[in-house]
């Protein structure tokens, strides 16, 4: 999993049936010092996150698991909203 900040939303009217009803958010992966780490990506939200919130997300096959038994075709899912993190 990785830290990220929600920086936007995606609206797609025509999409795979498995994505109907999901919320698509644009997230910017972060390092713990809050600098950007690599390019932004689109993730399906599973926890009710919103723009500007700090979150963590899971990549790969496991990204579809929060939605079981629905089969959501995604490779990234937000699985938590971060209260805070401690470094050191």
């Amino acid at each position, binding site marked *: 999993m990785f830290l990220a900040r929600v920086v936007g939303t995606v609206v797609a009217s025509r999409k795979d049936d498995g994505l109907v009803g999901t919320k698509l958010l644009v997230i910017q992966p972060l390092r*713990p010092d809050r600098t950007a*780490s690599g390019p932004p990506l689109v993730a399906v939200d599973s926890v009710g996150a919103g723009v500007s919130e700090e979150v*963590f997300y899971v990549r790969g096959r496991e990204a579809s698991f929060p939605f079981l038994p629905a089969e959501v075709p995604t490779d990234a899912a937000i699985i938590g909203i971060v209260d805070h993190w401690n470094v*050191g």
Partner: protein
Amino acid sequence: MLIGRVVGNVVSTQKNVKLEGSKLLLVQPLDLAGEPRGTPVLAIDGVDAGPGDRVLLVQEGRAAQLVLGLGTAAVDAAVIGVVDAVEQSD
């Protein structure tokens, strides 16, 4: 697996139900010289590791789910060992 160093922890109240009760560590992957390599990863703690520990990190879903022990869960990384020593031949 990668060798990494635990650099912190993450607190999250609102999260996937299967992550409730598990500790989330921030782990900085290291190269063999001990230098940081890439972006720190959030990993489930399977061995009661803490900040400063050098650890074994898996970044693969099935392995991380075995650590959690709850069947299918939305996790893709886990700390599965605390490294005592690494020996390298030249």
